[in-house]
């Protein structure tokens, strides 16, 4: 078959024809998004309008525009070469597949949901055929994957806007994903994003962007903060702010876990318990009517108390368990996580002392009031209405910024190096003067404290704290299994990794609720595939960025070694004679 032949790098079709096929298909796809894809407005998003795009057609439109740019790269349009430093064919393939899969998914959904291909109109057929052409054309082109040339150093005034724009684009993409209104839109979006990301990654442009952000860390962090603020200002109403809040909590806790798992290499399967300790501590002293303690501490006091109690819990649990290594530690922490849940479930005055109000939990936790700003009320800031979730979004963003800051600074310090050394080889680390147990305990305590920080806010956000929010595993995050999955899926030891992992792991089950009880099955499958094809996680740590540098040195070394060997052989021969 020609497809196989092209995969083997021997195209039977001339490259110019294949390129023309891609270009033609892309233009046709672009046109088709302005046509109706079905006759009835019954399909969500209303795809029945000729003249402008609607619903999923927007996704196809945007991907087609990207594809058009990639076509420009393949025709060597000046000024576009930087988009594909490692070769443009994979970029074409990725984007073409993104278009193909997400468009065909919608077309098939139209046929299925409205019962029959009769619901396709001429525009649907145009879209169906037009999206096939770029996919076919790009796979007929020979793969031109190559090592990237060294990037021309950009002046700083160019670097900064590039980073800012890239982060803003990422934010808008995330915003679109969060605010997709119906399943078809989200699934189409997910397909498009998945394949497009693959294409952009293998074209090398993402690597180059990552290198830029690594060089300008302050600019990157500030841009991310600005983007996160813009996000909440462009929301209409509070509906998706609550989703964003949950993601922020989840991501903050995942980042805390990343210190324990990603840096120090301690597999903690009961981490959600520390979120629970923080939440319970804050709730009990918040003035909630159902609390056994009838005190209403100010928020800062709750925060400090939540952090300190979580940290103490971390040290108490860590002190005996951290003498274990590897799998044994994982099992014991799993046990302690469950012990926490069962204990707070039983401290209800009947099966134990009355402390946590048992399974009913502590309810009626009042909304926060900070400097006269009531988080439970609606406010208007700079012309935007902030409901409850919008208010908490701002607070959670601040909490996350603190955790990111701590993580970044600790990671690149004597402490971070000691943790990574312990993770890599504990015996060698001790031989280098590192008190392994003390540093592991410190990682455990710090991780617990950061989870406690998130927990105190979580108690107020949810207004209720119950034992069953802190399970080992459940269908929705945060729970210990999902937290660990977010870290591993995203990329251990990185900052963006767990954030991305948390966003994905929250959104996918949230948006695909029609799967009901099969969610976890799909989740497991996705994890297995992930571990098979990208075990280092979505965001690999520094390794990738070192690759290029190392290959150069390796070549020089190999050359030297050959010379040295030749010389050595001569000397040996001389000595023998």
């Amino acid at each position: 078959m020609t497809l196989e032949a092209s995969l083997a790098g021997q195209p039977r079709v001339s490259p110019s024809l294949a390129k023309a096929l891609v270009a033609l298909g892309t233009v046709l796809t672009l046109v088709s998004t302005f046509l109706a894809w079905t006759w009835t407005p019954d399909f969500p998003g209303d795809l029945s309008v000729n003249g402008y795009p609607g619903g999923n057609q927007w996704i196809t439109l945007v991907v087609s525009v990207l594809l058009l740019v990639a076509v420009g790269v393949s025709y060597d349009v000046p000024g576009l070469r930087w988009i594909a430093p490692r070769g443009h064919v994979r970029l074409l393939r990725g984007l073409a597949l993104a278009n193909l899969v997400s468009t065909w998914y919608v077309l098939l959904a139209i046929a299925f949901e409205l019962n029959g291909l009769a619901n396709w109109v001429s525009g649907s057929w145009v879209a169906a055929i037009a999206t096939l052409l770029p996919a076919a054309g790009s796979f007929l082109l020979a793969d031109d994957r190559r090592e990237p040339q060294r990037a021309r150093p950009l002046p700083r005034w160019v670097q900064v806007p590039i980073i800012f724009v890239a982060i803003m684009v990422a934010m808008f993409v995330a915003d679109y994903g969060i605010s997709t209104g119906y399943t078809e839109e989200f699934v189409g979006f997910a397909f498009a994003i998945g394949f497009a990301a693959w294409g952009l990654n293998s074209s090398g442009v993402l690597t180059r962007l990552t290198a830029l952000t690594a060089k300008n860390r302050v600019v990157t962090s500030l841009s991310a903060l600005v983007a996160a603020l813009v996000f909440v200002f462009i929301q209409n109403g509070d509906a998706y702010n609550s989703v964003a809040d949950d993601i922020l909590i989840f991501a903050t806790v995942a980042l805390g876990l990343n210190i324990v798992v990603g840096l120090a290499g301690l597999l903690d399967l009961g981490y959600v318990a520390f979120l629970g300790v923080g939440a319970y501590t804050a709730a009990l002293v918040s003035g909630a009517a159902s609390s056994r303690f009838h005190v209403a501490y100010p928020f800062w006091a709750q925060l400090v108390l939540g952090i300190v109690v979580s940290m103490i819990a971390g040290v108490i649990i860590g002190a005996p368990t951290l003498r274990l290594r590897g799998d044994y530690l994982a099992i014991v922490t799993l046990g302690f996580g469950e012990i926490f849940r069962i204990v707070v479930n039983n401290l209800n005055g009947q099966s134990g002392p009355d402390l946590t109000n048992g399974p009913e939990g502590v309810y009626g936790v009042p909304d926060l009031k900070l400097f006269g700003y009531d988080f439970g009320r609606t406010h208007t800031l700079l012309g935007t209405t902030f409901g409850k979730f919008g208010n908490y979004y701002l607070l959670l963003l601040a909490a996350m910024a603190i955790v990111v800051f701590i993580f970044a600074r600790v990671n690149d310090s004597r402490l971070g190096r000691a943790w990574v050394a312990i993770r890599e080889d504990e015996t060698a680390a001790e031989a280098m003067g590192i008190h392994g147990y003390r540093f592991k305990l410190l990682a455990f305590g710090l991780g617990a404290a950061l989870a406690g920080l998130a927990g105190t806010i979580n108690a107020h956000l949810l207004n209720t704290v119950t034992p069953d929010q802190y399970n080992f595993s459940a269908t929705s995050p945060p729970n210990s299994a999902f937290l660990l999955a977010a870290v591993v899926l995203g990329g251990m030891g990185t900052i963006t990794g767990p954030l991305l992992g948390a966003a994905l792991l929250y959104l996918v089950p949230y948006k695909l609720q029609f799967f009901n009880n099969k969610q976890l099955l799909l989740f497991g499958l996705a994890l297995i595939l992930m571990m098979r094809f990208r075990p280092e996680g979505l965001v690999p740590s520094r390794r990738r960025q070192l690759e290029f540098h190392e290959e150069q040195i390796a070549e020089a070394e190999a050359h030297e070694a050959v010379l040295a060997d030749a010389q050595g052989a001569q000397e040996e021969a001389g000595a023998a004679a």
Partner: protein
Amino acid sequence: MTTTMTQPDGATSTATVLEARGVTMRFGGLVAVDGVDLHVADREIVGLIGPNGAGKTTFFNCLTGLYVPTSGQVRYKGAVLPAKPYRVTQAGIARTFQNIRLFANMTVLENVMVGRHSRTKEGLFSAIGRGPRYRAAERDSRDKSRELLDFLGIGKHAGSLARNLPYGDQRKLEIARAMASDPGLILLDEPTAGMNPQETRATQEVVFKIRERGLAVIVIEHDMRFIFNLCDRVAVLVQGRKLVEGTPAQVQSDERVIAAYLGTPVAGDGAEPVSPDGSPPASDAAGTAAEDEGTAS
């Protein structure tokens, strides 16, 4: 810790850096190290040789706190060594490992900076706060580590991952990492294992240069030419016991050593006793023996 290391009684015997007395290590019924005495003077290079399974690495592990000796005592500069690896490093003894144990996913520079750990003390809060003192300490660590990398000739690799280094450079990195803790004594466990003759010669120069920096060295090695060229004194361990100790010339000509390595010739066998002057047969046998020593680690 450091303060207890500088006791007055250490001042009287300044020349002696390390003094091991009657170090014995038993694993159940097996006596891996049996009453070994060893002393190392300031800036001395001492070789430790012996057939496979003689207990050389076990003895190293006893010196560095990885094992707690069943009996016996190890003194470093007059003070008894604590039996915890990180405290031994703190006290001033550093080591390399026979089977390279680098932090594979850290950069070369970071590996050496980990070695600085026991000479720095910045903790969590200074890492978060990053005051001037923290930055000065960090810069100091970085500079010292870079200097060590240059000293061993692997400075150009500073930014790459340790696991991607060529084999010989990984051995050098182990030495750099050990030296980063400013030790007074460094223990090298088979530093030339798997190296070609050129690399072995280069390593020999490195060890001399380490001595010039004021360190004493104990080195385990199977390459006899390397040991006899390098060491001021050689101790031979056989089955956990110290068989002979003396200058390279003395050890080389000792019948017992040859017997330990090659066995005693059976009468009437016709086998020539090996000439005792570091001749090819002896070093060849030792060379093949160097291929694997599994029991001791």
